[in-house]
Structures are given as structure tokens and as C-alpha cells.
């Protein structure tokens, strides 16, 4: 079963194929919207809030997804697989310790 994933605010859509996580489907579709990091549930940069729809999740680092986040349906896009069409809001941020000066 294929599902449609919609990113709120960015007004971006892509298709998820069976067994694939949301982040790899976004990458596979050549779209940009969710930050891409470790793709293993460890770094937290791909965090999204699931506004609508059902999904299954594999193990995610507690450092980024604790019980409270789970209740709020704030999860890691690289660890969730859709079980219906999904509507997501991107909430992951990356800290910028090194500000590069462009030249």
C-alpha cells in the first residue's frame, strides 16, 4: 500500500512505499523539507509532529523522543512508517555551533 505524506507549512507532498520510512521516501522522491541527519534515530534533526494519520515507529533515541514527545506525536521521520496518509509538521532544528562566513 502506498501512502501520501504531506508536509504542512511547506506544502510539500511525496509518496511512501511499503516498508520505507518517511525520511527515506522524502529523499527518494528528491524532495527537501525535513532535515536529513543520521537516518538512524540517533541525532534528532528529522523530528516531525504527526498532525494526522497512523504510523508505526522503530526504536528512537530517548534523548530526542521521550514519553512526552510520543504523547504529542512528535517523532523522528527516519523511524516512522506510515499506515495511512500522513500530515506532518517539521519541528527538528539543528544547532549551529560553527557559523561559517561565506566567501
Amino acid at each position: 500500500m502506498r501512502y501520501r505524506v504531506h508536509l504542512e507549512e511547506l506544502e510539500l507532498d511525496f509518496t511512501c512505499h511499503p516498508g520505507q520510512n518517511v525520511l527515506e521516501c522524502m529523499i527518494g522522491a528528491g524532495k527537501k523539507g525535513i532535515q536529513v541527519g543520521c537516518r538512524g534515530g540517533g541525532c534528532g534533526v528529522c523530528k516531525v509532529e504527526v498532525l494526522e494519520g497512523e504510523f508505526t515507529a522503530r526504536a528512537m533515541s530517548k534523548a530526542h523522543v521521550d514519553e512526552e514527545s510520543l504523547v504529542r506525536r512528535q517523532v523522528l521521520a527516519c523511524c516512522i512508517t506510515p499506515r495511512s496518509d500522513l500530515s506532518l509538521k517539521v519541528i527538528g532544528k539543528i544547532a549551529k555551533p560553527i557559523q561559517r562566513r561565506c566567501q
Partner: protein
Amino acid sequence: MALRGILRLGEVCIRVLDLAAARTHYVDRMGLIEVMSDEEDRKIYCKAWDEHDHHSIVLREADEAGLDYVAFKVYDDQTLTDLEPRIQAFGLDVSRIDAGVYPKSGRRLEFFLPSGHRMQLYAEKAQIGNTLGTRNPGVMPDEGVIRGFRINRLDHCLLGGPNIDECGRLFQEVFDFDLSERIEDEESRDSLAMFLTCSTKPHDVAFVIQPEPGRFHHVSFLLESATDVIHAADMIGKYRIPVDVGPNRHGVTRGNTIYYFDPSGNRNEVFSGGYVHYPDTPTLTWDTSQMGPAQFSQDNIARESFLTVVT
């Protein structure tokens, strides 16, 4: 400097979210040798083929990814005795861990670095060799000993956290490392990364500035040649292992490198090459006006993810 004092990074304990997936990655794909496992503690112990010590990588299943600790091997027990008061004089609390608490290991000293990382020192670990023996050893192990990414040994790690100048001072003043290279902000001259060596390698440990303490940037393994880096890259592609930065060369340290992630998001590197460092080699400094060439010298493009994605 004949190599005494701290010898090398000898053991890294990595937290993984799923032990079976970690075993597939580190043992089946990368080709590390699993020497022991502890089902109760949910740990796997591994070594690279050309290491003589019992293990160098410990994988521990946990609910967070990241780094448990790094441990450096020192020359002998007297080195531990001599270092303890010097570490305390630097201002760190040192705890003593009895022999045997860590398997196959002699006593350890443990303390927290100013960057927030747990670090240990030990002098003794059981040696099981590299399969060649030590008398008339030959040069080639049996077929199948060298496999996967063809990793020779654990090489270094990069740790992210605050207070990296203090870490640099600790490693130089107390542990007798040299500062081989440094990245600084072009204007403020603040340190952004410090590369430190206790050997003739360009680095044995490095620190990169991060707002949060105790972050894990990567652990790195040495390959024989740049050809082996490309071979590893082909296997990384075949097995769909997530890549952070594809084959390239570092400006800093000059290593031929590829960066990828384990299934829990911890970053790994395999690399070959680099220059020879001596204690009289001057410190090399790079600044933010040249972040591209400092990071990746074949395309001179700095990678945002390389500075911001950590576990």
C-alpha cells in the same frame, strides 16, 4: 619521544538502540570480529583483525544512541599511578575501577573531560593476537580473517562538547599529547576544533565545539589504502548504509575518508593515509574562511551536517 605514557585510543563503548542491527552493521558489514557477548548486559565486544588486545569496540544496547565512554591504553601500571595525581591537580575528580570490573581489563582510572565525556585509562588488557602468532608470524592471515570493510584497527575519535580549549590543555599538559591541528573562527580566533596526537599519527583524539556536553561525532577505523576506502564505499552503497560524506580527503589530517552512520545514527569513519607527526612538527591552523578545504579538500565544500549532526 619514544612512545610511552598514553599509547592509543584502546576502547570505545557505543550505545546502540538495537543490538542485532548493530551486530549486522559492525560485524557482518564492517567486518569487525565479535570476540565476546553478554546477553544479560546486552553488550557485544569486537576487535579489528590486526589488533592484539582482546577488544576495542563495545556495543551496548540502550534507549539512547551516543557514547558511553572512551578508554585509552597507557604504557604500564606505573603510568596510571603517575597520572592520577596530575589529573587531580588539573582539577578533575578521578575514580578508581578495580581490575576485572571491565572484562579482560586491568584496573582503570575514570574521570569526566571538560567537554562532558567519560574517559578511562588502563594499562592492561588480555591479548589474543591477530591470528598470525608472534614467532615467524608471516604477513597474511587466513582467508576470511580480513573481511567486510577490511579494517586494520581502531584509530581515533572525535568528541563534541563545550570547553574544548580546556580539553586541549588537559591532553597537552597532563597527557603529553601535541596539538597537531586546530580550526578557529576567522575573526574571534575562538577554537572550533582541536586535533591532538600522542603518536606519529595526525590525531589520536579530536574535539569539536558543540553546545551540549558529551556528544559523539564519530569513531574512526584505519584501512590499508585509499583503494580500500573505495571498496568500503562500494559495500556501504550495496548495503544501503546511510552516508554522511562520500569518499573525499580531509584538509585537516589529510586522510582519505568516508563517513557513514550505524543503524542507531552513530557516525563512523573509515580512512587511510595522512602525514607523519613528530613532537617538533608545528601546529597547523585553519580558519572559517577556509572551512571547505579544511573539511574536504577534493571538492572544497564544507558539509553542514558534518558539523551539526551528532549523537
